[in-house]
Structure formats: C-alpha cells, structure tokens
C-alpha cells in the first residue's frame, strides 16, 4: 500500500493506542519499583543473593517491557493507518509468567527461611 493510501485513524483509536502504551510504561515502572523493593526490603535471613536475583529479573523484565511498549505503539499505529488487523503481542504473556514465577520464588524463600 502506498503512502497516499494510508489514512490517519479516528482520533479515539489513536488516543487509545497512546493510553495502552502508557499502561505498558507504568507496568515497567512498577516492575522497577518491585525489583528495588525486593533488594531493599525482602528479608531472607541475611542472604543477599535471592533478593538480588529477584530484583535483577524484575528490572530486566521492566526494561524489555519499555522497549516492547514503544515498538508495539509504532506497529499498532502503522496497522491502523493501513486499515490492517492489530498484530498479536506476547508482552502480556511474558509479563504474567515472569511475575508469577518471581512472586512464587519470593514467597517460597520467605516461608522457608
């Protein structure tokens, strides 16, 4: 499709795309805050490394989400301009799996220490 055939989408969809992007950014920021809190506040009986591993995984997940969010916003806008279907994303799956696993490990360490 040529550039002339592209159409600017309805502004409501553009704003919804922007809000989705911001929701991803907030999720990233929450992952960062969770990572810092894990290192700062997770009391694992003097052991530092479990909290640090949880922190690194959470912050790394946040960084991937930040990059993915911007890419997703661009791809969505481009699809809307072309009148194509919105592409499927795996970011929420990655986020849910990481948070569930990290949360369970943190819980186990806290209970077994």
């Amino acid at each position, binding site marked *: 499709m040529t550039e002339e055939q592209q159409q600017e989408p309805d502004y409501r969809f*553009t704003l919804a795309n*922007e809000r989705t992007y*911001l929701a991803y950014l907030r999720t990233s*920021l929450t992952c*960062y805050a969770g990572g810092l809190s894990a290192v700062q506040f997770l009391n694992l009986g003097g052991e530092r490394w479990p909290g640090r591993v949880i922190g690194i995984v959470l912050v790394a997940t946040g960084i991937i989400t930040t990059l993915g969010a911007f890419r997703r916003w661009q791809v969505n806008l481009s699809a809307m301009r072309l009148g194509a279907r919105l592409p499927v994303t795996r970011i929420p799956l990655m986020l849910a799996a990481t948070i569930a696993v990290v949360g369970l490990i943190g819980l186990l360490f806290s209970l077994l220490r």
Partner: protein
Amino acid sequence: MTQPPAPPPPGAQPPGLQPERTLLAWRRTSLGLVANGLLLLTSGIGTSDVRLGLGIVVTVLALSCWATVSAVYRHLRHDPGGLGSDRVLRVAAGLVLLVGLFDLYAVVTR
C-alpha cells in the same frame, strides 16, 4: 455498527472524555516515575553516594515530567492528537528506559 464521529474541526475541543482519560494516563505514568525516583533515593540514603545522586536526578526529572505533562496538555488541549506526538512518546520511552538502567545499577550494587 456505529459510525466513528467526524474529526473535530481544527481549534475545537474534541468531543468525549478520551483526551481527559489520556491526560490522566500521562499523570499516572509521571507519578510512577516520581515513585521510582523516591525509591531510588531512599535506597541510596546512608549507603551509597552514587545511588543517592541517581535518586535525586530521577526525582527531579520525574517532577519536571509531571509539570511538563500538565503544561503541554494545556498548550495542546485543542489538538485532537493530544499529547501523543511521536517525539513526546520517544522522550517518555527514553526517560523510563533511563530510570530502568539506574534501577538495574541500584539492584546490582545493593
């Protein structure tokens, strides 16, 4: 199926609550940045000058972001595109990424 509304004429306030919801989404995101700045700041107090410095930088940046969001929105409130110019979104992603890298440093050196 409902037809989408015609785009508002230039200079007119777009109908509906979409711009307001988008502004609130920006405000929540700025608040998330402020929370990260303060957390980074407290993680450095009494332990590391570097983390303390990074915390101050992030907090100041986040508060500026909060003020800018309101100012830019006031300026652009008659633009149906709202805040979401490509450049603004790039800056937001860059800022969040920077905070992420600072947080990663704080987590690794803690």
